[in-house]
């Protein structure tokens, strides 16, 4: 079932005297439980697309429909509520509050929304445990590794139980082992928790852990493919896998 549908999104930024067309007519539908990677050369509009899907910014033309809500017609307050309650964001730089512990960071979106600290921290603890950080709840961000900090950021994005998780280069600042862990985590969110996940990445292995791959180029989608069509797997890879199992 369609969770979010973007139709003919156009976004232009003023760049001094000239205008940069970041998106030139992008249409995209994400279904519930999808795990989608977005790739493309630097500057092709990936972050812009993510911002428009998440209501962080508004398109010049086109529409974004999340469930029954048309984001482009909401006022600023309405959009803020959608961002706060229905969408989770994860960025390359983890954006944790340095003076707050892991659990306080994760609870923050709920406490900001008026939920009591004890209820919020109860939910925060559940997510930290799910993400393998049960023994780190009282650590400050600078007492955690990069991979752990990003997991705290993901827990924070999920604590409001959003329907959609948007991640912009979530492994961009991580070593390859931590990047793998994050990729596996995002996949399990979609496999086991039926979250819809869209992530932007440069890294082929991270992208390949998604089930669908979208390529942007010069502000338009040039390719959109399902990766789990396993019949198509080449015989060489198949026989390698068989030999290993």
């Amino acid at each position, binding site marked *: 079932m369609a969770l979010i549908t973007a139709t003919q999104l156009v976004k232009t930024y003023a760049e001094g005297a000239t205008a940069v067309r970041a998106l030139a007519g992008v249409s995209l539908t994400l279904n519930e439980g999808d795990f989608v990677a977005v790739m493309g050369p630097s500057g092709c509009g990936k972050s812009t697309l993510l911002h428009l899907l998440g209501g962080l910014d508004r398109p010049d033309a086109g529409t974004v429909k999340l469930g029954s809500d048309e984001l482009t017609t909401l006022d600023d307050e309405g959009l803020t509520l959608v961002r706060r309650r229905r969408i989770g964001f994860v960025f390359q730089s983890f954006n944790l509050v340095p003076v707050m512990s892991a659990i306080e960071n994760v609870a923050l979106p709920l406490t900001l929304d008026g939920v009591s600290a004890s209820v919020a921290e109860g939910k925060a603890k559940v997510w930290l445990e799910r993400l393998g950080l049960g023994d780190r709840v009282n650590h400050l961000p600078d007492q955690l590794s990069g991979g752990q900090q990003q997991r705290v950021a993901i827990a924070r994005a999920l604590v409001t139980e959003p329907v959609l998780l948007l991640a912009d280069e979530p492994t961009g600042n991580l070593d390859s082992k931590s990047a*793998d862990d994050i*990729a*596996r985590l995002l*996949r399990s969110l979609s496999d086991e928790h039926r979250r819809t996940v869209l992530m932007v990445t440069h890294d*082929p*292995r991270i*992208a*390949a*852990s*998604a*089930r669908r*791959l979208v*390529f942007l180029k010069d502000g338009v989608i*040039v*390719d959109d*493919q399902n*990766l*789990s*069509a*396993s019949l*198509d*797997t*080449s*015989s*060489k*890879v*198949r026989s*390698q*896998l068989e030999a*290993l*199992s």
Partner: protein
Amino acid sequence: MSVRHAVLGLLHQRARHGYELHAALTSLGGGEVWDVKAAQIYATLDRLAESGLVREQPGTQSGGPQRRPFELTDAGLTELRSWFSMPVKTGYQRDEFFLKLMLAITSGVQDPYSVLRTQRTSLYRDLHELMTHRQEASARAALAQQLQLEQAVMHVEADLRWLELIEGRLDDMAKQTTVEPAPKPRGRPRKNPQSPDGE
């Protein structure tokens, strides 16, 4: 690498003699990459003609396959199109993909970007399969298995990086690529010691 499809692609451009095909195919590979014997091309032409994918151009005198111009049939074009639409599935064999790309550029049957995307999707599907296996297996798999899986992953990554490089240069390639020797005048070719039919 598929000499069969190379011949079909070159004949789609225009009718050619066997020796012209040999020279054109050699220049497609940059002169060194593909070592195809002229005799192999003549044999391929005969087999393609038997299967109805090419035919002798009507109204030409018969002679050896070196001298007879062949042209593509409708069935040949269908076969060529279906080849272009398939990713190359011979493991990490890159030659055939490169040939396909060059022929897409020169024949105009298929947008070279779509040939590239088809191959990229296929590689990403392989990588998806490997990563899925790796994520499921890594905890219990023996180190030797993990390392072998890692090798397979790295091969696919290398091919993807190579595709990315090609994508950035595709327009330049299209500008540079010529598969001639320039068309010879029709009729009996002049004796020429430089001509490539001297094998």
